[in-house]
C-alpha cells in the first residue's frame, strides 16, 4: 500500500542525499588548499581537520534533511505532491546555499588570523 506521501519521501530523499554528497565533495576538494595554507606545511593535520569538517557536515545536513520528513503535510493528490516536493527541496537547497556563503565568509574572515596565530606559535617554539 503506497501512499502519495511515501512517493514524495522516496523522491525527496535520493535528491537531497545526492545534492549533499555532491556539494560536500566540492567543498572537501577545494577546502584542502585553504587548510594546507592555514596549517602551514602540516598537511596531515590539515587533511585530518578537513575530514572532520566533511563528516560533521554530512551528519548535520543529512540528519536534518531526514528528520524534516516528519513536518510534511498530508498529501492527497498529485498537484499537492509536486507542491510539497518543490517546497521541501527548495528549503534544503536554499539552506545549503546560505550555509555555503557563510562558510566562505568564515574562511575569508578568519583564515588570516588563524594563519598568523599558527605562525607565531611555531616561531616562539623554535
Amino acid at each position, binding site marked *: *500500500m503506497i501512499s502519495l506521501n*511515501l512517493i514524495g519521501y522516496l523522491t525527496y530523499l535520493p535528491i537531497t542525499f545526492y545534492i549533499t554528497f555532491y556539494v560536500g565533495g566540492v567543498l572537501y576538494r577545494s577546502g584542502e588548499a585553504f587548510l594546507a595554507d592555514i596549517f602551514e606545511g602540516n598537511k596531515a593535520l590539515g587533511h*585530518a581537520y578537513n*575530514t*572532520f569538517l566533511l*563528516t560533521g557536515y554530512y551528519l548535520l545536513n543529512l*540528519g536534518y534533511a531526514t528528520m524534516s*520528513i516528519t513536518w510534511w503535510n498530508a498529501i492527497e493528490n498529485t498537484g499537492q505532491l509536486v507542491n510539497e516536493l518543490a517546497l521541501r527541496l527548495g528549503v534544503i537547497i536554499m539552506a545549503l546555499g546560505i550555509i555555503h556563503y557563510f562558510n566562505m565568509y568564515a574562511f575569508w574572515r578568519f583564515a588570516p588570523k588563524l594563519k598568523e596565530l599558527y605562525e607565531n606559535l611555531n616561531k616562539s*617554539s623554535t
Partner: protein
Amino acid sequence: MDTPFIVIAYSVYLPVTIMLTYYVARVLFRNGKVFMLDIFRGREEIAFATNKLFQVGFYLLNIGFALLMLKAETGVYNTQGLFEILSLKVGRFSIYLGVMLFANLYLFFRGKRKSKENQLRAEGKLAEPIQERERPKYI
C-alpha cells in the same frame, strides 16, 4: 500474525545507529591520531593510548544514547508511518552525532593549546599561571 511495524522500525533503527556510530568513530579516531601526535609531540605510546581512551568513551556515550532514544513516541500503523518514525529517529541521532563530533574536535584543539602553553612555560617564554588565592579556612 504479521510482524508489527514497530518491531520492524526497531530492528532497522538499531543496526543503522550502531553502524553510524562505528563509522563516525572510525573517521574521528583515525584522524585523531594525527592530532594526538601533534599534542604529545610525537610520543607515540601515550598519544595512541589517549586516542584509544577517547574512542571507548565515544562508543559508550553514543551507543548508550542510541539505546536510550529507541522508544517510539507515537504508534506505527503503516508503511508511511514506518518511514516517518525512522526518519525522525535516525535523523535526530545523526544530528546528535554531528554535535558530538564537533565537541570532540573542540577537546582536541583545547589539548593542543594546553600542550603549547606547557611547552612555552617549560622554556621560560610564558609566565607561570597566577596561583589561585588560598581559600579562607572556615571553622
